[in-house]
């Protein structure tokens, strides 16, 4: 019924538009060109002014977006060592884009307004100018060369981290639809693994090689704990389809590909507790909790449970379409001090002890 009503409303809107056009047409009777459906001087004028209006609209929407969302914590509050490099490059690129966008949109829409057609006016015959062409070929070349060089240095330093500083090796293991983390244990070396060795009955869920001594002290967890200030080398695996390990606060992402091991490395620089105390994050969390409070009021009015209040945590999200529950494939990341990390690691079961003997 509602569907029918909405369709009726739509039809009425269309009829109304058509009627308005008809009335407009009637007012035009007498001027001979009104019915050729080719733009007249008055059309040119109206649309010329609308072009100026549209330019204003583009500027307004740009300003609103930058003021309202320009300082989202995810843009300015990174928590990894390479994060500020990425953010700086982002800001430089944004400034370049903002400048070019403002100027070119101005020229485009202003010319569309300024040179709106009039009867009897003749356009200037201006077909080519090598100097101009050269200018707007060379300027982009220079700007882009700068961006490319900057970008490539940043990329290379992120993807080829210093091997000398002995990172903690952590495996991120993806499956539909959850994440596991595996630590190398006391020897900081991951045992060999392959999905063909998975034995659910023996609780060997990641397919570790039981004959590999390096695997014995491996630790498998469902939360990712990282000590602050220590480089971490992630080795990614997937057991079924493509997934992507996305850790936005650390400006880190890498796909998990079945059949191969991918890797990514970063050094966390802020503990979860420190991040929660940054002014940007406090604002963000307060804002989110206000929204949740409002929503809770609506929910309780309907007799449903209120939402829990939100506390910030780093997250690992799946960012490659992986099936039905892709939208809920996440793992909490906790960055803590070395002592807290060591203490937590001690409480975790090692692989050898976690196996169930087959009967």
């Amino acid at each position: 019924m509602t569907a029918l009503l909405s369709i009726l409303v739509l039809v009425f809107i269309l009829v109304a538009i058509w009627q308005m056009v008809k009335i407009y047409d009637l007012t035009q009777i007498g001027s001979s060109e009104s019915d050729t459906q080719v733009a007249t001087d008055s059309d040119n004028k109206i649309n010329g002014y609308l072009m100026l209006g549209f330019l204003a609209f583009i500027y307004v929407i740009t300003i609103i977006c930058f003021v309202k969302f320009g300082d989202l914590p995810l843009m300015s509050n990174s928590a990894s060592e390479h994060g500020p490099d990425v953010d700086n490059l982002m800001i430089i690129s944004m400034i370049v884009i903002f400048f070019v966008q403002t100027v070119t949109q101005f020229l485009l829409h202003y010319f569309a307004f300024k040179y709106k057609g009039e009867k009897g006016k003749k356009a200037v015959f201006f077909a080519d100018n090598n100097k101009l062409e050269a200018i707007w070929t060379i300027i982009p070349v220079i700007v882009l060369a700068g961006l490319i060089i900057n970008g490539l240095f940043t990329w290379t330093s992120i993807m080829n981290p210093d091997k000398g500083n002995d990172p903690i090796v952590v495996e991120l293991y993806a499956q539909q639809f959850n994440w596991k983390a595996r630590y190398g244990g006391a020897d900081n070396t991951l045992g060999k693994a392959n999905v063909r060795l998975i034995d659910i009955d023996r609780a060997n869920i990641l397919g570790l090689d039981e004959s590999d001594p390096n695997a014995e002290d491996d630790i498998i967890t469902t939360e990712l704990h990282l000590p602050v200030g220590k480089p971490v080398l992630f080795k990614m695996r997937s057991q079924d389809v493509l997934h992507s390990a996305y850790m936005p606060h650390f400006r880190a992402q890498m796909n998990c590909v079945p059949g191969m091991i991918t890797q990514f490395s970063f050094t966390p620089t802020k503990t979860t507790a420190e991040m929660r105390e940054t002014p940007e994050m406090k604002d963000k969390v307060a804002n989110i909790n206000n929204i949740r409070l409002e929503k809770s009021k609506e929910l309780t009015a309907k007799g449903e449970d209120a939402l829990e209040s939100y506390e910030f945590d780093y997250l690992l999200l799946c960012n490659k379409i992986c099936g039905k529950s892709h939208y809920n494939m996440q793992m909490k990341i906790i960055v803590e001090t070395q002592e807290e990390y060591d203490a937590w690691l001690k409480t975790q079961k090692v692989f050898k002890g976690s196996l169930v003997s087959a009967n």
Partner: protein
Amino acid sequence: MAAHVEDTHAHDDHGHHHKETFITKYIFSQDHKMIAKQYLITGTIMGVIGVMMSLMMRMQIAWPEEPNVLFKALLGKWAPEGVMDADIYLALVTIHGTIMVFFVLTAGLSGTFSNLLIPLQIGARDMASGFLNMVSYWLFFISSVIMVSSFFVEAGPAAAGWTIYPPLSALPMAQGGSGMGMTLWLVSMAIFIASSLLGSLNYVVTVINLRTKGMSMTRLPLTIWAFFVTAIIGVISFPVLLSAALLLIMDRSFGTSFFLSDIFIQGEVLHYQGGSPVLFEHLFWFLGHPEVYIVLLPALGITSEIIATNSRKPIFGYRAMVASILAIAFLSTIVWGHHMFISGMNPFLGSVFTFTTLLIAIPSAVKAFNYITTLWKGNLQMNPAMLFSIGLVSTFITGGLTGIILGDSALDINVHDTYFVVAHFHLVMGISALYGMFAGIYHWFPKMFGRMLNKKLGYIHFWVTAVCAYGVFFPMHFIGMAGLPRRYYTNSNFPLFDDLANVNVVITIFALVGGVFQLVFLYNFFASMFFGKKAVQNPWRSNTMEWTTPVEHVHGNWPGEIPEVHRWAYDYSKPGHDVDFVPQTQPLYEGEEELQH
């Protein structure tokens, strides 16, 4: 069957005037003008389907898990009690992408305007092979039917994203849509590619061989240059997608391991060994990236023509425009890796692809500046086609600029697969190409149907669409920079993103308004086809050859001899002429110099 019978009859009549029956004229037509209309109408229907899907997705994102009468009415068992199912959401994502990219903006856009304009603007009686042209359309039609029919199979249509990365697309146990739905997707696309190849070969051959006397390559309108180069890119890259699809079919149905290895799913180890999903990504994007330009270049070609005509000025920098089309076409085939920076590919390759990708900004910048300079000191006729062309330049700039961020591997790490990407490509190829298509329809409607579209409805259509397009996609960049991943059925499992929910509601409202106002266009289109004002022969006072043909279509385009061409297509407001346009067929007067372009 009837068609075959009619065909034989036509051949029996050899030498006489071709007998035209309803079937040979409107259904199995070999006339390029009719085939163009067939492409346009099929593309429009697919466009309506594709846009409706996007509106349903937007409503789901804005008001997740809430009952919606529209879902209940349109999705049936996929929306029990009107609440959308998570599987069908991914299917909508997939089929929306596939339909819009291939069926609307490749076949609908290129198919319509290449077919209509190539013979008319180069002075040919028809395409090089009318028969192949007809086959090309009907293959497209069949693939469209198969693609849409996949909504009616038990486990739903393909739902692995339009990029159909295996293993998700290869394993029915990974996802409901990867069973019969995916098979239909692959079959449909294989047929589509065959159609596209037949079309492209025809365009290339026609442009090379059938130009009329005097129509040298440097006198070609930029539309034809764009269609010609687009067809070449299509011929080079579509076969690679076909090979990827065939290998995927082998993996799915015949147990090979091209793309699969070491998989444990639903409690069992599969036999696949040694393949790599990354190989599929390479093959897919070797088409996938040129595809962006297959979609965009025809729109830019159409814009060049319309901006010059309506500015009453020559297009600025004809040679530079041709050169940048060629440069974009060349570069487009060596940048595909920028979709794969974080796929596990060697980081050094990432550096190479960053370099080649950012190079594309140079010819693109040249094109944008040349359009703006064409407007400068013009006498702009604000016809609806002109508005859409200016709109195209605007969205092309806005959307193109963010490509500088996505093409930069270091920055891509953090915005890859977020809404930033969605905003970027929708503006730069989706909206821009759609504007190009609308511009083309408003401009050449009189050529196609002998009647004019209503300009006031055109103005309403443009301005509402333009505001809504920015309203949808501009804020979307920012939720992407806030880290919101795309292809999420709902964001409600992440309180982290709760502060973006309002933005999503605003975006959805813009999308709904923009979507509903396309009805104005559809109404205008179908009503004007029958009741529009009768068109005159050359309503926009344009130089190109299609406007020298009679308003009533005749087989063979020109009733008598094909006219000879004496000049380029852009002698607008040329000093020494009384009127502000000089058709290409008008000889140079004594002492007049042809511009050395």
